[in-house]
């Protein structure tokens, strides 16, 4: 049996720390931007003043040398010295400007990479942690823990064992927990049994449960259900049945719309990919988990819009044995 020991509170605190980090880094980025702007202004002014000073001293020296050539009793040595000093200062300013520009180029490249990472991967990180927290909360709900700080046992396998206990509790309050359990099981079966690769995305409240890919199939939409009777029941919506082409098309539009709550950078990419492929060409799978009997059925949407049973009665415990 695979072992998972995960402290839900530690994950929650880390999740919060990630969000705080992003907010504080945004403050640092803005402050540094202001510092850069001030420095650029200072450098430009210093360069202009230095050039002006050198120009003036050269003129004065020329005037002094002309006067000396005409026999006037003038001493130009102080102007020579001042011009040397001014040219030296100008060279220092120009060298500093070059160093500043080099440092700025390096800074900009790391800043861009960091910003990109914060924009694109932070939401995925948070979504990933949210899924772990949900799974652990489902486990927590079973009250099988002896302490509040340590959660013993594997995510889904222990959860499966805990599901009968869940079912004895208020169904309404446990729907979300069961949904999370079903999703975890669906993900493991599809990845390990069918070799599909899960695509990280920001899981919206009313969107796809999971998204997978396989060679030649860049997007596969997956719906996961839990049913004590093992029956596939997909909800009807005003855009069609869940996981139908109409429903997928509607979700893909929302995922790609920055004004939608279902938008995120990674969701937008998946949404646009679906739009390019055409929702009718996006394969859909449904995994129905029967938590009481510890089995799962996998269905695929067929060309006629119906659902064909690909494989039934998959023993989820078999995977626990594989994990050793």
């Amino acid at each position, binding site marked *: 049996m*695979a*072992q*998972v*020991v*995960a*402290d839900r509170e*530690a*994950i929650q*605190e*880390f999740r919060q*720390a*990630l969000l705080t*980090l992003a907010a*504080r*880094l945004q*403050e*640092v980025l803005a*402050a*540094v931007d202001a*510092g*850069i702007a001030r*420095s650029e202004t*200072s*450098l430009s*002014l*210093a360069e202009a003043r230095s050039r002006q000073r050198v120009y003036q001293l050269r003129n004065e020296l020329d005037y002094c040398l002309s006067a000396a050539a005409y026999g006037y009793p003038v001493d130009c040595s102080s102007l020579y010295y001042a011009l040397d000093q001014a040219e030296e200062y100008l060279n220092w*300013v120009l060298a*500093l400007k070059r*160093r*500043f520009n080099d*440092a*700025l180029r*390096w*800074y900009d*490249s*790391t*800043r861009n*990479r*960091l910003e990109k*990472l914060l924009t694109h*991967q932070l939401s*995925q*990180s948070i979504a*990933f*942690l949210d899924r*772990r927290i949900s799974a652990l909360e489902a486990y927590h709900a079973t009250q099988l823990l002896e302490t509040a*700080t*340590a959660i013993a046992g*594997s*995510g889904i396998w222990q959860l499966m064992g805990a599901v009968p206990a869940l079912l004895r509790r208020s169904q309404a309050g446990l729907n979300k927990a069961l949904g999370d359990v079903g999703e975890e099981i669906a993900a493991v079966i599809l990845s390990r049994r069918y070799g599909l690769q899960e695509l*990280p995305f920001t899981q919206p409240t009313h969107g796809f449960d999971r998204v997978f890919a396989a060679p030649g199939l860049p997007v596969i939409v997956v719906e996961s259900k839990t049913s004590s009777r093992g029956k596939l029941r997909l909800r009807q919506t005003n855009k069609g049945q869940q996981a139908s082409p109409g429903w997928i098309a509607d979700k893909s539009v929302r995922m790609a719309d920055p004004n939608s709550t279902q938008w995120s950078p990674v969701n937008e990419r998946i949404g646009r990919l679906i739009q390019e492929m055409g929702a009718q060409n996006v394969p859909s799978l449904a995994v129905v988990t029967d938590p009481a009997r510890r089995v799962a059925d996998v269905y695929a949407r067929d060309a006629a819009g119906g659902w064909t049973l690909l494989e039934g009665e998959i023993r989820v415990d078999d995977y626990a044995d594989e*994990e050793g």
Partner: protein
Amino acid sequence: MRENVSHSYAELQRISGEWQNVQSSWHDSTTDYFANNFWAPLEDELTDYIRALENLADVIEEVRFLTE
């Protein structure tokens, strides 16, 4: 500018500490996935960013002398 470097270092240390705290109590297969795909890239980019920021702060400190 120096205080931004300090703040960034402090943030890196804080988030690293939080991660070590999580790692000590999260030992399933998803830990490695998260570590490799999310945490490691973030830590690397953040470290690179702070080094570049520190370098820039040194130069900006010199620029500040121009106006003093």
